[in-house]
């Protein structure tokens, strides 16, 4: 009874924020299903169920109010981000292992909601791609890929695609193919050549992927409009990626893809609006967010262009997660009355 002001509050909650993030993923998800089949939905259900179950177990073990935290939506966001960054035809147990790793180790062992120093989904992605590089690198091709039944059997049947002769129907991500194409020493080729000849490329980026990215862009802009995220990180990320990719392309158009290709490929859009903007493990001051977003873009490009992994968003995010406290500490905005442009005290 003896509580203090303010006596009323804006109708908002952690759950509301998390649900809006999930809703914002829907346009991209629709495009995903359209181009790559419904297997992703099966993975989503699987990951969601596992995430909620593991979350419940951890909450009980940690003696936290179960329903309050179970319904906050944070476990679902982690699960969905894992699924959307993983290949949709990855075996079911990889998805489960990733979700368990994210929720148990990255989230709860560090203190649960609000305490994790790393983005759980990205940490899980990093762990899985290190542990199962091959399983994590097989992606369905848009349009003429495996049918739904085939995808399901890949997820649950433990079928080895190589023995089934499905090799032609699945392939690495467009980013990966580009790198492999460029780096294979046998034939001297160029970016333009690969993009024109390889079936995985569409108009601007990867075939199908460009539309998924567009879906994420729409959802992300909606999140900014809803003030769930601020514009700083996505803009810093996308602008920096554009500038770096542009600079490399101008310097050597044969060896480096265009900025548009980088923006619409891999995890760029998902990373810019949904992963880098995770506030718990990220920078939070306005200037800090710009540095943080630019830093992720920088490392993403470096890893894509010169690293060994197909995409760099996950590792770049984890790298910048480490820097976030330092970035925040050194970018504290001036407080009221201490800004540069305020009139000086009259002596």
């Amino acid at each position: 009874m003896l509580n203090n002001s303010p006596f009323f509050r804006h109708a908002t909650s952690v759950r509301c924020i998390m649900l809006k993030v999930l809703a914002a993923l829907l346009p991209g998800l629709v495009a995903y299903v359209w181009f790559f089949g419904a297997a992703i939905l099966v993975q989503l259900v699987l990951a969601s169920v596992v995430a909620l179950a593991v979350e419940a177990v951890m909450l009980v073990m940690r003696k936290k109010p179960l329903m309050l935290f179970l319904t906050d939506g944070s476990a679902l966001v982690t699960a969905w981000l894992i699924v959307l960054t993983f290949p949709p035809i990855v075996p079911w147990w990889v998805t489960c292992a990733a979700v368990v790793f994210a929720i148990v180790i990255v989230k709860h062992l560090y203190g649960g909601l609000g305490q994790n120093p790393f983005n759980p989904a990205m940490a899980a992605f990093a762990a899985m791609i290190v542990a199962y590089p091959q399983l994590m690198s097989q992606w369905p091709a848009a349009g003429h890929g495996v049918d739904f039944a085939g995808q399901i059997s890949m997820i649950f049947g433990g079928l080895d695609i190589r023995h089934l002769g499905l090799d032609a129907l699945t392939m690495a991500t467009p980013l990966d193919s580009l790198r492999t194409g460029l780096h294979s020493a046998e034939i001297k080729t160029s970016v333009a050549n690969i993009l024109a000849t390889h079936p995985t490329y569409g108009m601007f980026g990867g075939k199908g992927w460009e539309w998924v990215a567009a879906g994420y862009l729409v959802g992300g802009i909606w999140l900014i409009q809803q003030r769930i995220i601020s514009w700083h990180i996505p803009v810093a990320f996308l602008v920096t990626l554009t500038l770096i990719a542009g600079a490399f392309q101008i310097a050597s158009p044969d060896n480096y893809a265009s900025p548009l290709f980088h923006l619409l490929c891999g995890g760029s859009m998902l990373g810019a609006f949904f992963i880098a903007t995770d506030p718990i493990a990220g920078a939070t001051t306005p200037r800090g967010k710009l540095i943080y977003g630019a830093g992720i873009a920088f490392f993403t490009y470096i890893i894509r262009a010169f690293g060994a992994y197909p995409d760099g968003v996950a590792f770049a995010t984890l790298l910048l997660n480490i820097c976030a406290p330092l970035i925040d500490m050194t970018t504290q905005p001036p407080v009221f009355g201490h800004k540069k442009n305020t009139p000086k005290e009259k002596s």
Partner: protein
Amino acid sequence: MLQQLFRFHGGVKPPYHKEGAVTQPIAEAPLSAEYVIPLQQSIGRPPEPIVKPGEKVLRGQIIGSGLNAPAIHASTSGTVKAVEMRRIPHTSGLAALCVVIEPDGEDKWFERIPFDYRNASIDKARAFLREAGIVGLGGAVFPSHQKLNTGKSGKLDHLVINGAECEPFITCDDVLMRERGETMIRGIAILRELVRAENVLIGIEDNKPEAIAATQAAIDKLSALGENTAGMRVVAVPTRYPAGGAKQLIRVLTGIEVPHGKRSTSYGVQCFNVGTALAIYDAVALGQPLISRIITVAGNVERPGNFEARFGAPMRDLVALAGPRPDSNRIVMGGPMMGVSMPGDEVPVVKATNCILVGSPKLFPPPPPEMPCIRCGACAFACPSDLQPYEMYWFARARNFGKAQEYHLFDCIECGACAYVCPSHIPLVDYYRFAKTEIWAHERDNAAAERARARYELRTQREEREKAEKVARLAAKTAAAHEQALVAAAEQAPAEPPIIDHVPPEPEIEAMRLKIREMAKTTPPEEE
């Protein structure tokens, strides 16, 4: 001419709930059966009671007076029943010294002498306002006489008059401007002369078009009557809580940000509430000290309204006038954003009471369970002081008060915007209040320890001095006795040169030297 406005960072737009009370004219609250008037009604040392139980007092007679504190007056004529500790309007149910007056029903005024401010020094004007008990009526009750400071240049650029009234439910300033605009403008004119301000900017939130129109009409009328209203401007400011915070309003109207701990007069600007201007007119022109104010009674009541209420009246009398609904379960003094929960309904109305808000479980539901901070930054987005509330929360929670101060804890004005928007429902302001009181307590302890240390050192010094004197006296005595003995001996025997009869061997001297060196090393240095 269009006034250029400036934005302040952050702010929120809570539902305003102002409709009910403004439609009713200001009503005079009837006399209560008893007036419990707390002596401390503004910051600083409380005034001392200067009346005794049994004494007759008149309306407006000084009953409490202190060195630099605004005086406290009898709200009506009657008998002093007691001078005792009573519960005051404080969340904790704190008791403080109050003068209890039983009205005689005659309501007879004490001598009322207007003040000729035009022919008085600024010191005289200050003393007058202090005697009249004038404090800021916006809610902070800062003594007004202490604000009659014109800075080093001897004049101000801007006098800001605060009619923003940004807290939900509260309409006392709104109705004041509508009904008593003319008197208020006269008060502002007096204030302007006292602080020698070039411009007067009356800031009113644009959700109060009637008050804006009424204030403008009052200025026009007075200017037609030949009063000096030059440079007075009514400015509609965007409705955004807390636009009525003094610093925020000064920022919006003049672009000046007065940092924490600095006087606004150092920046050529001073801010007064509209109610204070009216009180100053009543005091200066009519000789009536501050014994009442307009108070909004709203919330879970049938007939919300504004009442002219005298200080010391029990809050329940005012609540009764508005007809509380049966499910009412609490009384809040002030608005829902910054108000304080009252320990009971018998606590008296004081100068800081701008609103009595009646709550119910439906109107102010208990806060949802607190969740962990997810660093979403909504609080930083809403903070009008450009702070990073989530960082301060983090440090306050960890009792890392030094770090909390580094993140400008004391620049927080406790407006509650951060807690209002927090999706994790964290009572952020409570954490800041906690951290501030802990720091104050720590500083107080430190100061006490410092005093104790100084006291101890003085005593030690004194003791050492006394010991030294004693030794010296003793030495003098012995020396005298020795001399006497010597004199006596000399008288008896012829003087002989003293003989050193024992010289220690070389190794022994060396050992003694070592020992002394050792001692010099281990002995702590003498304390200063």
